[in-house]
């Protein structure tokens, strides 16, 4: 259903720029010198074609249905004095601009392009530099945000904005964007039935992707690299997270993926490499976590309290400092059928499944979860001895944190 919808949407987008009426040309030496004038002159469904040049403009309000095309990437410079384009209409198409210097504000969320109460909009092939909130979508639906580049040099959370910010939206498609150095790379709040795919989110000071109260969404083929705290998915249900790469989210409070109050979701075919915590999970139920690869993380998978009926299977755990850390026992989560690189059992009948159950939780990770300061003993001889003796005869680690059918060989990794 979702696929069908996006195909129809796609065809619609293709048709949109060609279906307009007259064309109004804007250039520094033309009759119409500013984009604001061009928009004012345009009738419904016209195209405003902006030629190369630097346009120092703010607060361009677009309430008609129109197409805004940039030729040879014209620059709209806000001179740090306010929002640049605000759109409120039935449909809107913008392509080929460079939008810069929106200027930060502590009072309002200024945006490079704000789409407000609109439907059927496309934002394609634009560049945003120091745009505070680059693309701000609110109360809108059926939009495509594609091939945009958002660059910022944010210093701290308080005075920086999000690259792509969506609030109370539905049926969005965020694809092939590159967002770097913002507060949050992509921010979703109350956004349903949307797709986020093939984006690169890097060096953002808070989250690469921030996801709140948004249901029935899917994100896939994205890459989240070196963000302040990785990706946060909170208070949502029916989310599909597939084929993403989470790497180098490294720091004292960093995650690859933070899950809080997530229900009935799928986490498949993802790669978690060199994160402080690969997945951190809290009060999340009925998640299906399979065929992911966790390599060289501090903690590959950390479960806090209140998680139930989660299935962790067919994942590769490769050379993490701690593979698994579970805070409270007595849950019905299952951990069967994974590959653990530090599994030391044998397989007599050669069916690829180890004959001895594996306990992925080391005693030391149990100790550390109750006494974090004990981390100073990491890699000491005593701790190695402790882990060994616990492995031989488990006493402290939760009884049901066990892989009854550990795999002998790592599963083949998916394409990326």
């Amino acid at each position, binding site marked *: 259903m979702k696929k069908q919808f996006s195909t129809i949407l796609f065809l619609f987008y293709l048709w949109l720029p060609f279906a307009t009426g007259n064309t109004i040309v804007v250039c520094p030496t033309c009759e119409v010198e500013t984009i604001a004038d061009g928009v004012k002159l345009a009738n419904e469904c016209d195209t405003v074609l902006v030629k190369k040049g630097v346009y120092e403009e703010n607060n361009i309000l677009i309430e008609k249905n129109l197409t805004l095309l940039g030729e040879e990437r014209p620059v709209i410079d806000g001179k740090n004095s306010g929002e640049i384009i605000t759109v409120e209409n039935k449909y809107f198409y913008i392509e080929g601009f460079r939008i810069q210097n929106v200027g930060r504000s502590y009072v309002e969320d200024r945006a490079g392009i704000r789409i407000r109460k609109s439907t059927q909009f496309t934002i394609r092939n634009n560049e945003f530099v120091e745009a505070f909130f680059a693309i701000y979508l609110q109360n809108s639906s059926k939009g495509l945000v594609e091939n945009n580049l958002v660059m910022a040099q944010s210093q701290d959370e308080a005075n920086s904005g999000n690259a792509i910010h969506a609030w109370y939206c539905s049926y969005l498609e965020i694809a092939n964007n590159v967002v770097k150095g913002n507060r949050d790379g992509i921010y979703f709040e109350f956004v349903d039935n949307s797709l986020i795919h093939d984006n690169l989110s890097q060096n953002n000071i808070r989250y690469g992707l921030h996801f709140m109260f948004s249901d029935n969404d899917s994100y896939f083929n994205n890459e989240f690299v070196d963000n302040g705290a990785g990706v946060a998915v909170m208070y949502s249900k029916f989310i599909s997270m597939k084929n993403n790469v989470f790497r180098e989210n*490294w*720091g*004292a*409070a*960093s995650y690859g993926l933070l899950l809080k109050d997530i229900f009935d979701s799928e986490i498949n075919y993802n790669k978690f490499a060199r994160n*402080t915590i690969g997945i951190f999970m809290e009060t999340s139920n009925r998640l299906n976590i399979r065929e992911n690869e966790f390599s060289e993380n*501090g*903690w590959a998978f950390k479960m806090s309290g209140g998680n139930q009926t989660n299935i962790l299977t067919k994942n590769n755990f490769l050379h993490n*400092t701690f593979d698994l850390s579970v805070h409270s026992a007595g849950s019905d989560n299952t951990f069967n059928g994974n590959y653990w690189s530090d599994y030391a059992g044998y397989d007599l009948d050669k069916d690829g499944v180890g004959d001895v159950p594996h306990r992925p939780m080391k005693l030391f990770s149990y*100790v550390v979860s*109750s*006494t*974090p*300061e*004990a*981390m*100073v*003993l*990491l*890699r*000491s*001889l*005593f*701790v190695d*001895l402790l882990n060994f003796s616990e492995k031989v005869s488990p006493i402290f680690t939760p009884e049901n944190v066990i892989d009854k059918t550990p795999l002998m060989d790592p599963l083949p990794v998916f394409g990326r």
Partner: protein
Amino acid sequence: MLKIFKYSFFDLVRSRWTYIYAGFYFLFTLGMLMLSSDLSKVVISSMNVVLILCPLIATMFGVMYYYNSREFTELLLSQPIKRTSIFTGQFLGLASSLSVSLLVGAGIPFLMFGVFGSDQAGNFMVLLFNGVVLSFIFAAISFFIALKNEDKIKGFGLAILVWLLLAVVYDGILLLGLSWFRDYPLEKASLIASVFNPIDLSRIMLLLKLDISALMSLTGAVYRKFLGSGTGIFVSVAVLLMWAIVPIFGIRKMCLRRDF
């Protein structure tokens, strides 16, 4: 003193055990480097080995060397040589030969794999520095114990016990203490506690150098703040050197009073 140092040093450097010791480091490091091309990983693995082996071997060697060269020591004592120079010279010869074994054994493979062209050069230097200092510390402690105890078995037992205390038991007690008082802020306390154990101190210095410090979150931040600062580096290096210097003074004092 220099003459005796030179004599013991060359005597030890030519001994079979030194070759075996250096050979072990060489093979181990070479093997690790061949298995994994990631230098930082090899530095971590080598750290585990160096932190256990350097103190242990220095302890064993120290006691053994003292008892085995007893006749030679008695011969020297009959000559007009100062007692302190005899024992200090012997100790320095022992500790230096152990350090040379470590430097050559672990150093050559790393050099072969181009450690100085990589970003691990600093960590590698810290690793070797800690290994050398640990060798000196434990050689001094074991020499002191051997000097104090005429009885071979007692001396051996005590030396091994000290190693066991510092390498294993200390951490156990520390862990127990930490979990006992976990309702209190323990960052500073654990920092102070780890200063009192040279093995822990070197381990933490190395761990903070390597990227693992992020795992330590708050505790790591406190440690990093202290050990990363100028005074912190100065204090930790000074403490490590103190660990070597105090037993050396013990040796010098003891050998004056000792009746042979």
